[in-house]
């Protein structure tokens, strides 16, 4: 694996290996001294053309815990915001000797361009591109699901396993969600069955060709007793573009509420609730549900660091084993 551009590119073996290594990384993070020497002397550049504090911090933390040197370029207040092109920025980083470039960009496919045009010789990690993919988010989601659904919440207990036969409902703005795309690919590759739930306006054309099922009815999808429910962020601006009539109507039909969580756990007591964050409490998820007993939202953040450590480690030091 030279780059991590898309969850769709991962084979089952690669995905399971990433999750296994991430569990090993997570185990080291429970020690008092969290820092590992694995990437000492290597340089990881975080290139954030789009603001995302949580993803940037997660990658920074992951790289630092592996002892890499970390350089962060953020859109705000840098040449990036003054119209410097992706190409020039990448060439600059190349000149600085970046071993890995973590890129977040509003344009779908930007990481692919970076990897394919030879603007950088380092490994390229997609930290979210437009409405295309966000592979490390899908990895941390599947990490969380595997740990709890297969490993009984114990690190290492699910090593080597996939998510065969597990059922996951993903509800929200699928149309604009890179998280949904990456999760559909990765969950499918790992053997899980995915049902996407959204109003028809927030589903892309051709979604019936994706490796998943599609429903417009959240309650019906939850009535099938899935093992997990993942809520996607819904931006309020979508309302102005007539994707749905009002926030109230959206929450009523598609919001994750305490009542819906109760209905779900009545069928599947072990059900997991995920949200990639940041949450719009009161729109796609209520505070009660987000903070409730089935919610893994806070743990997802912790797991994100472990998964990103694994990705950086396998891309930069993987072959040396």
């Amino acid at each position, binding site marked *: 694996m030279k780059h991590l551009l898309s969850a769709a590119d991962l084979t089952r073996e690669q995905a399971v290996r990433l999750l296994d290594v991430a569990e090993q990384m997570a185990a080291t993070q429970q020690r008092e001294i969290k820092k590992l020497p694995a990437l000492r002397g290597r340089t990881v550049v975080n290139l954030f053309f789009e603001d995302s504090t949580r993803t940037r911090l997660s990658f920074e933390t992951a790289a630092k815990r592996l002892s890499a040197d970390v350089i962060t370029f953020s859109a705000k207040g840098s040449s990036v915001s003054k119209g410097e092109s992706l190409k020039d920025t990448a060439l600059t980083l190349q000149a600085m000797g970046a071993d890995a470039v973590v890129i977040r960009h509003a344009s779908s496919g930007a990481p692919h361009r970076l990897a394919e045009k030879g603007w950088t010789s380092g490994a390229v990690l997609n930290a979210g591109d437009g409405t295309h993919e966000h592979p490390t988010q899908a990895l941390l989601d599947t990490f969380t699901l595997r740990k709890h659904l297969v490993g009984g919440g114990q690190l290492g207990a699910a090593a080597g396993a996939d998510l065969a036969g597990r059922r996951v409902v993903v509800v929200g703005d699928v149309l604009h969600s890179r998280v949904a*795309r990456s999760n559909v690919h990765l969950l499918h590759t790992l053997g899980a069955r995915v049902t996407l739930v959204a109003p028809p306006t927030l589903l892309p054309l051709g979604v019936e060709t994706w490796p998943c099922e599609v429903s417009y009815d959240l309650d019906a999808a939850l009535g099938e007793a899935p093992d997990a429910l993942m809520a996607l962020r819904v931006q309020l601006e979508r309302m102005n573009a007539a994707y749905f009539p009002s926030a109230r109507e959206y929450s009523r039909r598609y919001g994750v509420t305490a009542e819906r969580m109760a209905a779900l756990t009545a069928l599947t007591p072990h059900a997991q609730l995920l949200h990639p964050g940041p949450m719009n409490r009161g729109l796609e998820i209520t505070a009660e549900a987000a903070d409730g007993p089935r919610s893994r939202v806070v743990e997802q953040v912790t797991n994100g660091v472990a998964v990103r450590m694994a990705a950086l480690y396998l891309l930069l030091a993987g072959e040396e084993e």
Partner: protein
Amino acid sequence: MDTTLITGARPLGGEAADLLLRDGAIAEVGPAGSLSAPEGARVVRASGLIALPGLVDLHTHLREPGREDAETVETGTRAAALGGFTAVHAMANTAPVADTAGVVEQVWRLGQQAGWCDVRPVGAVTIGLAGERLAELGAMADSAAGVRVFSDDGKCVFDAVLLRRALEYVKAFDGVVAQHAQEPRLTEGAQMNESALSGVLGLRGWPAVAEEAIIARDVLLAGHVGSRLHVCHVSTAGSVEIVRWAKARGVDVTAEVTPHHLLLTDELVRGYDPVYKVNPPLRSNDDVRALREGVADGTIDIVATDHAPHPVEDKDCEWSAAAMGMTGLETALSVVLAALVEPGHLDWAGVARVMSQTPARIGRVTGQGGALAVGEAAHVVLIDPAARWTVDPAAMATKGRNSPFAGRELPGRVVATFYGGHPTVLDGALATPRALPASDREGASWSK
């Protein structure tokens, strides 16, 4: 004046013949071997080559004035000559927009001075392409440029009342409105053909219906007011059906397709290489098939390049930041051979019809798109049908390096282009531009 004897060429792919070009006209035509070269005449041995009337492009972006970094009239018309063209229509979306007699005359004069082919400026339909108020269409028609084609290309004339008025108004001077059919609201921020693939790639879709809805409205309007309508770059199977239906009803509509829409599909977008970003976008295989059939049965009247050069920096970037458009002048003929002639949709006479005669007729270009017969203007292109070549954008005369055919092997090569009897291309390479006719020299210097 130049005198050239072309020996043994096959006019429109027919029996080999000799053609004598003298004083800007076709002076004599006879069976191969029947004509002898007058004293001092240039002799071009053309056995095995096809002779067609010089090609006429109804849709070219020459970028001047305003974007001379992308193309100039000089470089664009050099590319045209190399592609076998003896006339191009320069689109109006320049800076300033070609929406006044002054701008269209400037572009026309630049074409005259360049001397590589006729440059027929297209006038904007609305001031500044803003879609709000009619530009002075009559002034542009009456200017030295003699504008007959009006288009807001790049933008759709969306206001139905404004379009109706434009369709009616240009009847006074036998003009035609060339519509860029794109429903603006349905295509806000659109990046590629809306399909299952756009959903997977996370690129905002440009649905076929956004083109078809406008064409449907426009053919009904044109029929209602009894005007000519030309539809630019038709790209979908549904559009072909609508135009076919309109023609059957007797609407005076003509339609064009670009070479790239005849050969390429949206599958190419998969790698996010912006060289494949174009408006309207590359469509599906079914659309390509329907477009080819549309040309074969005459529903689509012409092939027009939509030659759209861009500087490297506008394409060497991420997809959404990249400019839309592809170069086309130097590959058009070869792509037509690959997409239409080799599969049997068109013969050579058909190529002459869709790339020379009909575009000249739609644009009311006098002296172009004629038959290869005595007395016609000597606009002639010689093509080697057996040649194959690999497209290399760096070797092209256009400033644009954004050819979607780069690296592809294509059939057929332009060997020579005669523009008013003067060879602008010989042995496949640029020769010299035609000197400005003496009668125009004064006007040209006056314009400075």
